């Protein structure tokens, strides 16, 4: 019997290996040398301190969205609405960043982050409440909320929050004091990365060391049992949804205050969904989330430069990401199927 660490490692690596093999076949078909391309990928993402900084910068939003997703997944709530919370939180933070008087100085940053967390928490409170009280399918409700978030933010940045100086679809730039510090200039790696790592750390502690983390893992595995030992499944479901929203919102704040300094259309190129892939790949484990975020960050940062230097389109990177996600999900499906079969015996 393998140790649980080894098993987790295999569970993490297997989807990756398969995805890279499949993409390799694809590369051969389009007449490229996969070994060359892959070594280029590694080089472009980890080759120098600048490249590493770029990779970590790209992984920053994923740390938040993966934690936000994992909080719900381990409780059995299939929340796909982190993207929405990320957008709402991002706009909220950016709003604080340019709207609050500059005299507030550095205190704008914590205010903006807290505001973003509150917005995100409220945002996912609603689907959580609907799920807990009326068993409204959380996949549908959170997915729909994503579209609403896109529409609301889209309206605001075209209307009330539109920058008076720029064209359209963009807010004013935040005050300089509201910007998160850059860690390794000239790269865009910013203080949000540290915040992201702290989120993962807190998430890990919450999973292993808190009563509510204990409860949420139990309801993820067996709701009837949880009820029988006195755990309120409803309250716990609402709690994890709100926590997920808070982390998602703070992720948006980090991205707005650290990376873009404003909110524009396409603020998130699907960070919520890539975070979901990371959470699945990591099986919700904190260490897995860090590794997965860096991996997907590497793919994203190297992908753009590879497109510049070779004939490989960025789409290939998306294909690799998609394949990893599919295989990660297959593994999950197989595990839960086995559980179900055992339960029936």
């Amino acid at each position, binding site marked *: 019997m393998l140790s*649980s660490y080894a098993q987790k490692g295999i569970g993490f690596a297997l989807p990756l290996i398969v995805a890279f093999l499949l993409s390799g076949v694809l590369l051969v078909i389009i007449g490229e040398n996969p070994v060359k391309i892959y070594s280029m990928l590694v080089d472009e993402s980890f080759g120098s301190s600048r490249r590493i900084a770029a990779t970590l910068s790209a992984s920053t939003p994923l740390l938040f969205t993966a934690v936000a997703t994992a909080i719900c997944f381990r409780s059995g709530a299939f929340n796909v609405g982190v993207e929405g919370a990320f957008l709402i939180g991002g706009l909220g933070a950016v709003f604080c960043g340019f709207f609050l008087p500059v005299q507030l100085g550095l205190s704008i940053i914590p205010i903006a982050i807290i505001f973003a967390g509150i917005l995100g928490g409220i945002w996912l409170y609603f689907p959580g409440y609907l799920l807990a009280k009326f068993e409204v399918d959380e996949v549908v409700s959170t997915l729909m909320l994503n579209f609403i978030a896109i529409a609301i933010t889209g309206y605001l940045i075209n209307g009330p929050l539109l920058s008076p100086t720029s064209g359209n679809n963009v807010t004013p730039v935040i005050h300089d004091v509201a910007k998160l510090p850059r860690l390794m200039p000239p790269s865009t790696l910013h203080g949000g990365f540290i915040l992201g790592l702290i989120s993962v750390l807190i998430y890990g502690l919450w999973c*292993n*060391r*808190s*009563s*509510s983390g*204990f*409860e949420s*893992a*139990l309801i993820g*595995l*067996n709701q*009837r*049992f*949880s*009820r*029988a*030992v*006195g*755990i*309120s499944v409803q309250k716990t479901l609402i709690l994890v949804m709100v926590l997920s929203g808070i982390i998602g919102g703070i992720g948006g704040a980090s991205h707005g205050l650290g990376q873009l300094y404003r909110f524009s259309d396409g603020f998130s190129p699907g960070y919520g969904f890539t975070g979901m892939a990371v959470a699945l790949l990591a099986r919700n484990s904190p260490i897995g989330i860090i590794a997965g975020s860096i991996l997907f960050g590497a793919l994203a940062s190297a992908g753009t430069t590879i497109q510049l230097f070779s004939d490989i389109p960025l789409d290939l990177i998306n294909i690799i990401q998609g394949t990893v996600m599919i295989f990660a999900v297959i593994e999950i499906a197989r595990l839960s199927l086995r*559980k179900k079969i*055992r*339960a029936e*015996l």
Partner: protein
Amino acid sequence: MKKKTEALQATNVHKSYGLVKANDGIDLQIFSGTIHALVGENGAGKSTLMRIFQGIEKPDLGEVFVDNEAVNFTNPKQALKMGIGMVHQEFMMAPDLSLLENLILGEEPLQNNLGVFSRINWTQARVEGDELAKNIGVSIDWERKANSTPVHILQFVEIIRLLRRGCRIIILDEPTAVLAPPQVEELFNLLRKLSKSGTTIIFISHKINEVVAVADYVSVMRRGKISFSNTIDNTSISEIAFHIVGDNEKKTNNLKGGDRNIGDILLEINDLSSNTINKSQELSAISLQLHSGQILGVAGVSGNGQIELLECVIGLRGASAGSINLKDQNITQLGVFDRRRLGISYVSSDRANEGLSLSSSIEDNIIAGSHRDSPISNGHTLNKRIMRATAVERLDRLSVKYGNLNETASSLSGGNQQKLVFAREISNDPSVLVVSQPTRGVDLNGIKAIHDIIIDFASNGGAVLITSEELEELQKLSDEIIVISNGKLVGRVDGQNSDIKEIGRMMVVQGGGNA
């Protein structure tokens, strides 16, 4: 009824799941064209036997004969081919399809055989359906959607579907559980007609009145064996009831009788009623008192409200009227968490899904419920060291055998799983222990250990409310036994000096099967 040929026969069939012998040498003959009732408590082995007949399970030992020919099914398709089909309690219907579509689903009559491009011959399907419905004397609106069709019609469609597939032996698993009395009569007419035309029917039921009303033969299963088999004409309701509840009546097992001090009232239930949710039995106006040091047994044919009563006490099920008091405190409106805090514990009958979280670690299973209590937790954060020490201490207290705290609870044997449940439930020194099916699926040594736990608990001043399908177990443990039938309290007898026959009569005859 003589000189019948055997349609289906089992000889010396054995089937074990781990240590549990679900079928322990079954010999059963089912004669062609008869209605053969199979009765027995849950866990007696009926389902296992039916699964073997259907080719879902393979017997460990023994043989099954169809038309006197030995068969060796490896999958359900083969059984279906030999003409054996089953109507399950949960109908196998696609709710959004019409009845006709459901009828032919999986075996559609085709107009032309072009593989995936074949077209369904709806005219023929309709003709086949009408023909079969006419033969068994029912009329069916085939265009109706399954989800808007009354449940007894769905049952007819299920039967017709099996007939269309050429089934000659039809197993019905508690078919009347979902039916109202007039519909039951309609179903019985249909079954009689079917059997007259040569179809063999195996009728699984808990309700002895119905068995006597419709069956030609009856077999009673008990603890994996056929304990009784006869023609209906040569037996009686009370004889069947007697065999269901157990045949060794006067066992002197007065081991622990009467040496406990019965003290103050700990739990008092007044006129408790509860509504039906999802086919559960409703409770009406149940009153009882539970004293310190007392073990109160709840007897009844399964599905008559015992589980529901216990769920009301722990708080998993709401009361629609009446009150529950724990030591003078009205707890009727409290949830599970508060009731557990006040000193009620619960051992579920469904160990695999409610008593334990099998895929969680042993540690999590033994700690769950106390994860907000000091010193394991300060209410928010866990002290892992104390948590682990507490887990070990609790498991050791009832000598649960386990390998590693991090292994899943499913790695334990049935007996140790149940001991784990008890270890958790008595760990906070509750005053009232609510127990359902304490020894289901537990081997003999485990049973003794668990009985000792329960008796110890009561001897130390706790109160136990316990239900079990093993009447002997109830009799052995209980100071007093109340009998429930159809959600009503119908009798009350002294524990040790009770007569099993008398309890059995109260369980089945009074109020009885006829819902």
